């Protein structure tokens, strides 16, 4: 932040989010620090590690300010050139700039890229711009101003009313209006009251909460303190998935520095408010993302949900009034208080206000983390921001909402994404996972995959979820193995409906979504498995035979090279042939063929 005020010095931001770290950004950061100290650079510089910039596909990212240069896929070996050319002499390193796939031109700044242009960052506003370990960086970007405003200029009920007016709905999946939840807890006479941050993100492919906790921990803490003031709570807990060690570290540093600055502890900012936060590490159970299971886990019990006929706002943690919100929900609170509910509510759709962070993964060019206003279409997210499907393949479906979400077909790509539209389409918002699937995806196998995930992650307490999942899994497996019958589809639907109606918690009530949504949109694929003993995508091995179309095959030999069992033969520039006796149906040939000459029979 200091550098931003000093025109002569450069601020170098190295993305140290999860994806970039895995690609060696820590080495890039350390190497930059070292070389900038050792070499005789005359320019004054500040180098900072930041949280996730979201553009994970092109990481590690290095941003140089105030020049607004973004270097992609930077390796430690690139550092000397960056220091010598760009930092010292102000020259651009063309080879490290992003190359636009359409115009084929190099782009200097990430601000000029479609991936970022359509985004609107509220919850992620600081991530990538600040050092998460520095409270000064957070304060420099208006951090803790919302807290000061709430404490000095607003009554607790005014804070609650502001959150209600913003229309903010819980970002963890349920979509319950946050302000209404707060008001319910504020109205409870019982003391003590608790505030909980649900950071037990567990959906496969989802990492939005992780990125916020790692990249901007103070925003979560500030949101929680504001809630504590609004409802009269004294203790807070951040429940973090155990695998997220960097999140635990950064949150720990943030809590310590917030205490030292008087944002946590007794008489916060000289007010009557006394509130402190502790971190609880989850035990690795997906179901603990369900709020009653999470509270059972904090209490030291087995993480199993309970019926919520009495809401946690009345009887939550240890039977006391409790507000529990998701990480991203908390990150929005300081924005709402600081900028006002009206500004927040101006974004989004009628029923869903503000923005939503999505983790965009699967068969999409720009995998990463994106934040868009509610109501953005799936097509914009996947094709404009995401850059479409890689490898020239066709789009098949998009799965939203985690393992209990549904699969949405191409015909629904213009759906404006919000809480209600996704439910209507048979899927759900969930916590914001978006998994893109191409035409090499078998929808029956996808349903089986998610049900299999839930078979291991259901808590196993209630009958419909535990036994229903087992029955669905057995039936789907039979269909994938070519032993399905048409009556099985009725059985799948029947059991799914009972799971929706009778399961104890939301995990069970939504566990059949992958099955029901694929049955709704891709029934012909189920029928192909059953009637024709064929898997149209060529995934289910028992039902697949690959053959090479002699008319299309150019004899390039790429399939032969990639076949792991030497099942393909043919002369150069002549059509090739697959030996069905040797073929193990792995699909390497079809995935590598550039001429669509490999067909599924």
């Amino acid at each position: 932040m200091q550098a931003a005020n000093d025109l002569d010095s450069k601020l170098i931001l190295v993305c140290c989010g999860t994806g970039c770290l895995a690609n060696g950004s820590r080495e890039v950061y350390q190497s930059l620090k070292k070389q900038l100290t050792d070499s005789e650079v005359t320019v004054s510089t500040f180098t900072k590690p930041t949280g996730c910039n979201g553009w994970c596909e092109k990481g590690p990212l290095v941003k140089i300010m105030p020049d607004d240069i973004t270097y992609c896929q930077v390796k430690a070996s690139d550092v000397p050139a960056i220091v010598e050319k760009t930092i010292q002499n102000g020259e651009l390193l063309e080879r490290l700039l992003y190359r636009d796939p359409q115009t084929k031109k190099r782009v200097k700044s990430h601000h000029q890229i479609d991936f970022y242009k359509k985004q609107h960052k509220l919850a992620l506003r600081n991530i990538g711009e600040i050092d998460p370990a520095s409270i000064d960086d957070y304060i420099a970007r208006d951090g803790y101003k919302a807290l000061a405003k709430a404490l000095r200029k607003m009554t607790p009920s005014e804070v609650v009313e502001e959150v209600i007016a913003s229309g903010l709905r819980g970002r963890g999946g349920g979509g319950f209006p946050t302000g209404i939840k707060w008001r319910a807890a504020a109205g409870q006479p019982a003391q003590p009251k608790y505030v909980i941050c649900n950071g037990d993100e567990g959906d496969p492919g989802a990492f939005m909460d992780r990125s916020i906790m790692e990249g901007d921990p103070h925003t979560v803490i500030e949101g929680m303190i504001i809630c504590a003031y609004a409802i009269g709570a004294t203790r807070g807990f951040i429940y973090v998935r155990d695998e997220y060690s960097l999140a635990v570290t950064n949150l720990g540093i943030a809590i310590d520095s917030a205490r030292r600055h008087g944002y946590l502890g007794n008489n916060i900012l000289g007010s009557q408010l006394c509130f402190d936060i502790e971190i609880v590490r989850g035990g690795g159970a997906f179901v603990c993302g369900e709020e009653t299971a999470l509270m059972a886990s904090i209490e030291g019990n087995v993480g199993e949900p309970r019926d919520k006929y009495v809401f946690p706002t009345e009887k939550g943690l240890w039977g006391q009034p409790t507000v529990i919100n998701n990480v991203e929900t908390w990150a929005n609170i300081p924005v709402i208080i600081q900028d006002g509910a009206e500004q927040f509510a101006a974004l989004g759709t009628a029923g869903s206000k503000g923005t939503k962070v999505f983790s965009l993964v699967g068969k999409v060019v720009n995998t990463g983390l994106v934040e868009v206003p509610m109501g953005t279409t799936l097509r914009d997210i996947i094709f404009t921001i995401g850059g479409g499907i890689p490898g020239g393949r066709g789009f098949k479906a998009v799965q939203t909402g985690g393992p209990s979400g549904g699969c949405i077909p191409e015909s629904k790509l213009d759906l404006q994404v919000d809480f209600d539209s996704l439910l209507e389409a048979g899927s759900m918002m969930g916590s914001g996972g978006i998994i893109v699937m191409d035409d090499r995806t078998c929808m029956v196998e996808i349903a089986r995959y998610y049900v299999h995930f839930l078979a291991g992650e259901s808590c196993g307490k209630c009958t419909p979820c535990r036994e229903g999942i087992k029955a669905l899994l057995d039936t789907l497996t039979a269909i994938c193995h070519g032993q399905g019958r048409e009556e099985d589809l009725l059985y799948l639907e029947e059991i799914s409906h009972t799971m929706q109606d009778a399961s104890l918690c939301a995990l069970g009530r939504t566990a059949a979504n992958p099955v029901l949504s694929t049955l709704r949109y891709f029934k012909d694929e189920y029928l192909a498995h059953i009637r024709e003993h064929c898997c149209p995508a060529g995934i289910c091995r028992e039902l697949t035979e690959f053959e090479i179309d002699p008319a299309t095959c150019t004899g390039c030999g790429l399939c032969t090279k990639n076949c792991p069992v030497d099942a393909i033969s043919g002369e150069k520039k002549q059509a090739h042939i697959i030996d069905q006796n040797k073929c193990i149906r792995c699909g390497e040939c079809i995935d590598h063929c550039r001429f669509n000459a490999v067909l599924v029979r």
Partner: protein
Amino acid sequence: MRIIIDEKPVEVEPGITILEAARQNGIDIPTLCYHEAFGGQGMCRMCMVEVKNGTSSRLVASCTYPISEEIEVRTSTPAIARIRRNIIGLLYRRAPNSEFMRQWYEKYEQPQSRLSPDVEESCILCRLCVKACEEMGSSAIAAVFRGTEKRIGTPYDDAATACIGCGACAQICPTGAIAMTESEDRRTIWNREFALVRCQKCGRPVGTGEQLEYIASKGGSALESGLCQVCRKKQAAVRVSEFYR
């Protein structure tokens, strides 16, 4: 407080569950995991009922739903019948070895999934055994693992050190899924053998040594008299009659 169950107005104590209210008024709601000694567990979901509150209606588990408002309850609708039929179907699929489940299954006439697993299981995971053990004060067994792997067991499946061999779990189990065997002087349960103490008078088993010790530690006198319940009663009767003679 007045609520309506199956179109019948009934007077209930606020805070009790719908299931309790229904049973107090002679309305039967089927349950598998409920026992009046422990209250509702909300696990089997057989007791689902429809609750109407104003204009909104929803399906809830009657054993855990506390009555706080003037609601209207329906205990049998086609939707509820469908849920119960499927739950029985699923549990029979899980525990085909259980005579108890077979009887339920016949009552509900649910066609079985053709892909039923070939298992010799009779436990339906109602957890009444776990509750009974907890109430006894031992907590020797628990529901272990997650998801479809969930089952009842001792810690690490070892011989249960906390078990006193009282057999309350086996006694309460509706499906006879807990193996408890007795020989002349031993009782075997949860991978552990216990010495059986017999009544000094009639020879009937009184309990295990550990169990009698536990009862004595709680202020009972089972160990001192060395008699079974029946003989103790007889002895007391003789004493009383001698006193008045």
